């Protein structure tokens, strides 16, 4: 409080008020915090907290929020698609919450509850009896002209039992300060998860304010959601199986999909994980298939069933509508709910409410005119420059237009479009919206605010999320508030009513937990888990190899023709061949042998097989570094490139990007803490200074992050089939990496001094140098350093870094994931390694060692391919049958 006095102009809030006072365009909209006569009653605590923090404190909170967003891996927006390396846009949270007083919220809540009930009834009618159309309450063209109307969903029977379970609406304030519904968002209501994630962060970065405020919690809403989804089941299953159907890890709200699924306790699936069998939906697994009772969809209805809807959709399940029709599955929201997002319905909702509920509509909307009605069209065309003109179905090309922002030409074009298809347009009065303060480098700035509110209907009652996803326009004076257009998120705090005990969350009986879903993951998921294991191990293994090589370069790089320089050259050669980085992408120089030439489809993925550079064990890879890298590249530059260049396959960054990508594909299977360490890894690699002297410290940081990733996997995952796939990936990768390393280093004898240095380096890279030294000192181990290294890294079943250990663990993993056949093969391979004689291997020119590691490399590779074939083979491609004219052969008559 005192600091408020110290701030010039009465602190940040005072300065914010003075910004509000400027009448930029006539009238200033209502502000959330400041009323005409000072701070609003219920906002005093917030205003005091803002002043107390001051701009410095607020900027700190903003930075902290950014960090939390990063650590939680909160992302929004498409774009990761074909660029494994580029993350989607991060979510952005403004730390200043929006406070809604209890009385005001109670009114809003009642209005939202009524709206949820009304829209459910409207939906049921339009896909059922259509009385609203028959009695002329809603014009039929509003419905039939909207692409969200799915005529395949019309009909009686079980389909009619499915209800609008989730509703969402965008709210803004009118000039009088009342909240109004700008638009309904009922196709696949999104944002409640972001609201929850934003709450977690805002409550931390504004901890003092949060502690001092009595606000209603959000968690109960997600319990209710689970309950509502269970109730929605029509199959009669005692414990309905619920899945969240996602369009994929590339979808804009992929983060939220996993977040909600995790909160509610059901899995995220994609279309290819599901299959129709005898009119039912099943999760495809290698083992016992499991029926699905309820699908919470994040896929737009038009894409949900390529048999009956868009034939080219790869994110839908052919036959899904038939399963719904037959009462074998419930889809939430029902297919066809997107019709409710039609702004052309708004002018008719009031009458519909009186007709269906015998009530007046509580929540107003800005006045809307549907142009299919001649009077409506005339009004809209006469007021084009004042209205928001909206297509009844927003498409990529057809977005809302703010009439007053249009130039003469655009306005004429819009007029023509409306005149050509009047039924496809409506005009809406522009809501002034309210402003809320946003932290900027120059202080708090007023931005226009829209709140998305959410409700879930369970037990016949609509439960409203006590809060919402606040979003503010990206710029001052901007009217367009949309997350896609760069809006900032704001947490919405609903203040608990003072006179009641309702500060506790709404009493919702906690739901029966989902049946233990510890069965074999679907092939797509199994493949991603396996890649998590492989790529995480590849990051670690490669970083270790780079570190030890960088050590040699620093010690011997300036002393050519010494034994140390020879050892350095050997390790550099190992780096280039193991990582497949022989080709300098900038000069094009190199051996012409990238990793792509090395391997078959080790990697389960939809894309062309990503290759495993670590597995190159063939003699062809044993070429010298000079020949591989070309004269242009200095050793340290090569190492830097193999660390940070995301374009070099085999680089640490490349593996890290693929690791993050694979983790995103199975986000709901991983611990939430995984994102803290993954984001740290990404950050470390992304912030690499362009300075060779920094290579070692950076490698140390990368290694730390990689170890943290491994730690999370080991310490936070239940040992089930999912873990089995991750660990199998780890073990196969490590075994192959170690075999490759041995093949390119100690498998060839060198001069004794060089040999000793190479052996030390290999043991260091294999994280076994300490045991080695101890054994050498105590004389427990084999006689020569090379034998010690081979024992430790190949044969020693007690060393977690050895090939023997990896194979034994792989066998356990394979049993865990339910493949005893492959497990037996892995055990046999492990046994064959255990029987090797180290003295024979290292005798003479070590030809036996070279042959053995090469042979083992092939064996592990064969095993990896068998695993891929058995477990990650995805179904055959889905293709629409060609639709063709079958034409009459000749004219008649």
């Amino acid at each position, binding site marked *: 409080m005192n600091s408020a006095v110290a701030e010039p102009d009465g602190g940040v809030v005072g300065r914010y008020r003075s910004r509000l006072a400027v009448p930029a365009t006539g009238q200033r909209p209502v502000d959330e915090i400041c009323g005409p006569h000072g701070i609003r009653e219920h906002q005093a605590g917030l205003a005091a907290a803002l002043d107390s923090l001051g701009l410095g404190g607020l900027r700190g909170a903003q930075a902290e929020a950014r960090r939390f967003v990063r650590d939680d891996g909160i992302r929004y927006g498409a774009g990761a698609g074909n660029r494994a390396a580029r993350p989607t846009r991060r979510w952005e949270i403004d730390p200043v919450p929006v406070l809604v007083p209890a009385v005001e919220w109670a009114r809003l809540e009642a209005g939202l509850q009524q709206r949820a009930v009304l829209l459910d009834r409207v939906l049921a009618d339009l896909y059922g009896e259509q009385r609203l159309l028959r009695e002329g309450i809603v014009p039929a063209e509003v419905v039939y002209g909207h692409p969200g109307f799915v005529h395949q969903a019309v009909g009686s029977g079980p389909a009619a039992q499915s209800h609008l379970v989730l509703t969402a609406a965008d709210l803004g304030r009118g000039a009088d300060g009342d909240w109004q519904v700008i638009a309904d968002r009922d196709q696949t209501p999104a944002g409640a998860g972001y609201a929850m994630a934003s709450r977690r962060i805002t409550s931390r970065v504004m901890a003092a304010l949060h502690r001092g405020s009595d606000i209603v919690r959000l968690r109960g809403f997600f319990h209710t959601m689970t309950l509502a989804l269970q109730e929605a089941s029509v199959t009669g299953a005692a414990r309905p199986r619920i899945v969240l159907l996602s369009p994929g890890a590339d979808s804009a709200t992929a983060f939220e999909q996993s977040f909600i699924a995790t909160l509610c306790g059901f899995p995220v699936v994609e279309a290819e994980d599901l299959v*129709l069998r005898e*009119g039912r939906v099943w999760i495809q697994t290698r083992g016992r298939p499991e029926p699905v009772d309820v699908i919470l969809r994040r896929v737009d209805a038009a894409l949900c069933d390529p048999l009956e809807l868009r034939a080219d959709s790869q994110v839908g399940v052919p036959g899904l509508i038939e399963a719904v029709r037959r009462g074998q599955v419930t889809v939430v929201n029902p297919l066809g709910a997107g019709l409710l997002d039609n702004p052309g319905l708004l002018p008719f909702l009031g009458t519909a409410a009186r007709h269906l509920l015998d009530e007046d509509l509580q929540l107003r909307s800005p006045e809307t005119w549907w142009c299919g009605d001649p009077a409506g069209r005339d009004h809209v065309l006469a007021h084009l420059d004042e209205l928001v003109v909206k297509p009844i179905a927003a498409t990529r090309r057809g977005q809302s237009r703010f009439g007053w922002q249009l130039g003469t030409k655009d306005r004429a074009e819009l007029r023509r479009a409306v005149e050509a298809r009047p039924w496809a347009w409506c005009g809406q009065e522009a809501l002034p919206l309210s402003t809320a303060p946003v932290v900027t480098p120059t202080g708090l700035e007023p931005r226009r605010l829209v709140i998305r509110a959410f409700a879930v209907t369970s037990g016949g009652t609509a439960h409203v999320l006590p809060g919402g996803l606040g979003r503010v326009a990206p710029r001052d004076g901007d009217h367009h508030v949309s997350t896609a257009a760069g809006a900032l998120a704001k947490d919405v705090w609903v203040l608990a009513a003072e006179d009641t005990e309702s500060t506790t969350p709404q009493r919702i009986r906690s739901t029966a937990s989902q049946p233990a879903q510890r069965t074999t993951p679907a092939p797509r998921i199994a493949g991603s888990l396996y890649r998590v294991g492989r790529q995480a191990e590849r990051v670690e293994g490669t970083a270790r190899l780079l570190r030890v090589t960088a050590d040699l370069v620093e010690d011997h790089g300036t002393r050519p023709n010494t034994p140390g320089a020879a050892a350095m050259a050997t390790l550099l050669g190992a780096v280039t061949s193991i990582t497949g980085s022989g080709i300098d992408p900038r000069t094009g120089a190199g051996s012409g042998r990238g990793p792509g030439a090395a391997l078959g489809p080790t990697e389960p993925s939809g894309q062309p097989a990503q290759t495993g550079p670590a597995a190159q064990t063939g003699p062809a890879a044993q070429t010298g570094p000079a020949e591989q890298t070309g004269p242009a590249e200095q050793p340290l530059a090569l190492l830097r490139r193999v660390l940070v260049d995301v374009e070099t396959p085999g680089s640490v960054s490349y593996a890290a990007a693929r690791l993050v990508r694979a983790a995103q594909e199975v986000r709901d299977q991983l611990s939430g803490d995984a994102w803290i360490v993954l984001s740290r890894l990404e950050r470390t690699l992304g912030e690499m200074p362009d300075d060779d002297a920094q290579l070692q410290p950076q490698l140390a940081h990368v290694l730390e992050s990689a170890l943290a990733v491994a730690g999370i996997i080991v310490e936070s995952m239940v040992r089930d089939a999912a873990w089995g796939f991750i660990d199998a990936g780890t073990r196969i990768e490590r075994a192959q990496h170690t075999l490759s390393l041995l093949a390119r280093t100690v498998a060839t004898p060198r001069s004794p001094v060089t040999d000793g240095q190479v052996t030390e380096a290999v043991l260091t890279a294999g994280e076994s140098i300490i045991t080695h030294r101890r054994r050498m000192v105590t004389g427990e181990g084999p006689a020569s350093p090379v034998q010690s290294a081979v024992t430790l890294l190949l044969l020693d079943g007690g060393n977690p870094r050895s090939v023997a250990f990896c194979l034994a663990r792989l066998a356990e993993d394979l049993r865990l994931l339910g493949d005893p056949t492959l497990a037996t093969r892995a055990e046999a391979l492990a046994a064959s390694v255990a029987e090797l004689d180290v003295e024979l291997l290292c005798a003479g020119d070590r030809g036996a060692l070279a042959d053995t590691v090469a042979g083992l490399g092939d064996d592990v590779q064969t095993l990896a391919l068998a695993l891929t074939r058995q477990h990650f083979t995805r179904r055959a491609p889905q293709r629409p049958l060609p639709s063709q004219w079958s034409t*009459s052969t000749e004219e008649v008559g």
Partner: protein
Amino acid sequence: MPNRYEVRHRTTYTYEQVVEACYERGPLRPRDTPCQQVESHTVTVSPEPDLVTEHTDHFGNYSQYLEIRTPHTELVVDKRAVVSVDRPAPDHSMLDAHTVADVARHTAADPDAPPVYAAYRLPSRLVDIGPDVIGYAAPLLAPDRPFGEALAALYGAIHADFRYRKGATSVRTTLPELLSLRAGVCQDFAHLALGCLRWAGLTARYVSGYLETTSPTGRPRLAGSDATHAWVSVRTPAGSWVDLDPTNNHLADSRYVVSAWGRDFADVSPLKGVVFTESATSRLTVGVDVIRL
């Protein structure tokens, strides 16, 4: 006396590689209409489907769902139906008693019309009403023109302006493309007619079915040489529907067997499907016989 027909419609898909699973949908059973009765029908599918279901779709057609999970390289769907058709000759004086504008106004405001009729007045995916279509329709369907005369002008114009040429178009051909090609098949002509009729505010739907053909030389017709046919149906001021065939330049009579109707081809495609296969290509053959009983 009604005409009685046995309609045989055999669809065969062949693939180069095995199809692991196949899902099909189509109106495999003809619908009854005020002038058509389906006496019997059968559907035979090979390989044997794991599931066959039927429901009535939003346009009143019977629609079948087939699920075939037996691996196969050839799928045969053989449907047969015996139907009797007795389509009365249209009442030309009734049709010409109203102008196009009258009929449009009257049918759009008809309180007894089911709501779905609104869909038959709006553009649809394959019936996009752009400037080209409007330009074609305007002189034919002038608002003050007698309705019956306007319909005759429409099918007459399409018949005169467009050559019937198989392979000239595909299911993806748009109406502007058709208008510049000036050639197509019955589905195209039906879509163009629908675009014109709907532009004029009339309620018009796409009809998928069959037509009895006669061999021009009087020789016996070849088995399987018939084909599916398509034409359009327009709501009349009397609340009935009149069917016109722009491909053959006349109104429909009792030789026209209705399979299904909807907004356009996409709603009533004879058979559509999704397959899971590595096979990048497939071959479709269709054999149709309309046999007078």
